[in-house]
């Protein structure tokens, strides 16, 4: 039954990945990886790790190793987003930075949100969507005085 749970998590992760929902994909692959490690199932563990790697394209493959420590994960996500942005992969960069916003809320540690809001707004500016950019810049500016 735990093996079935693992397989269904991997399947769900892939679905979320295909539907461009990185946060949910991240959650599924992350718990699949933990489960596979508990079950000592190296094949499924590799699949879960590959899912996380796919999620983290531009990001060092070590991301999934430290994803349980948000203080390490967050800068990596922000860096990956920034690097995608430099490559002109703006939609993907927005996804990464949105992931920071989503996960930081769960982690209760929102110090990277200022940067994430600003970076998302930068991407929308480059995409020519000034309305969206302005919306995110407003959130960014509202946070500039906090810590």
């Amino acid at each position: 039954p735990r093996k079935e749970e693992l397989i269904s998590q991997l399947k769900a992760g892939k679905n979320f990945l295909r539907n461009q929902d990185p946060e949910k994909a991240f959650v599924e692959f992350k718990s699949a990886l933990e489960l596979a490690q508990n079950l000592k199932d190296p094949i499924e563990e590799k699949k879960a790790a590959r899912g996380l790697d796919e999620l983290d394209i531009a990001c060092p493959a070590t991301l999934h190793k430290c994803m349980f420590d948000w203080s390490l994960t967050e800068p990596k996500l922000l860096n990956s987003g920034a690097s995608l942005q430099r490559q002109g992969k703006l939609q993907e960069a927005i996804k990464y930075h949105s992931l920071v916003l989503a996960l930081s809320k769960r982690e209760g540690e929102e110090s990277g949100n200022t940067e994430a809001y600003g970076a998302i707004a930068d991407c929308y500016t480059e995409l020519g969507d000034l309305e969206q950019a302005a919306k995110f810049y407003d959130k960014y500016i509202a946070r500039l005085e906090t810590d």
Partner: protein
Amino acid sequence: LETVPTIKKLRAYAERIRVAELEKCLSKMGDDISKKTRRAVDDLSRGIVNKLLHGPMQHLRCDGSDSRTLSETLENMHALNRMFSLET
């Protein structure tokens, strides 16, 4: 909305300075600094930049509800473009 590209350029301008100064600082401190120190130094650099940018950024985002505010916002934008050479 005309001011949106200025916000982006000003952010980039400040970020270049922040990263350059941070790297100088880290190279002075050597390799054996703790994670806590690394984080404190990073927070310091972001804190100063963010708090210094807060005023100008806010004054680039007045909603143009009355004409005085709009023209002032545009004046602020022109002044920032000049002062930080953001046009190029």
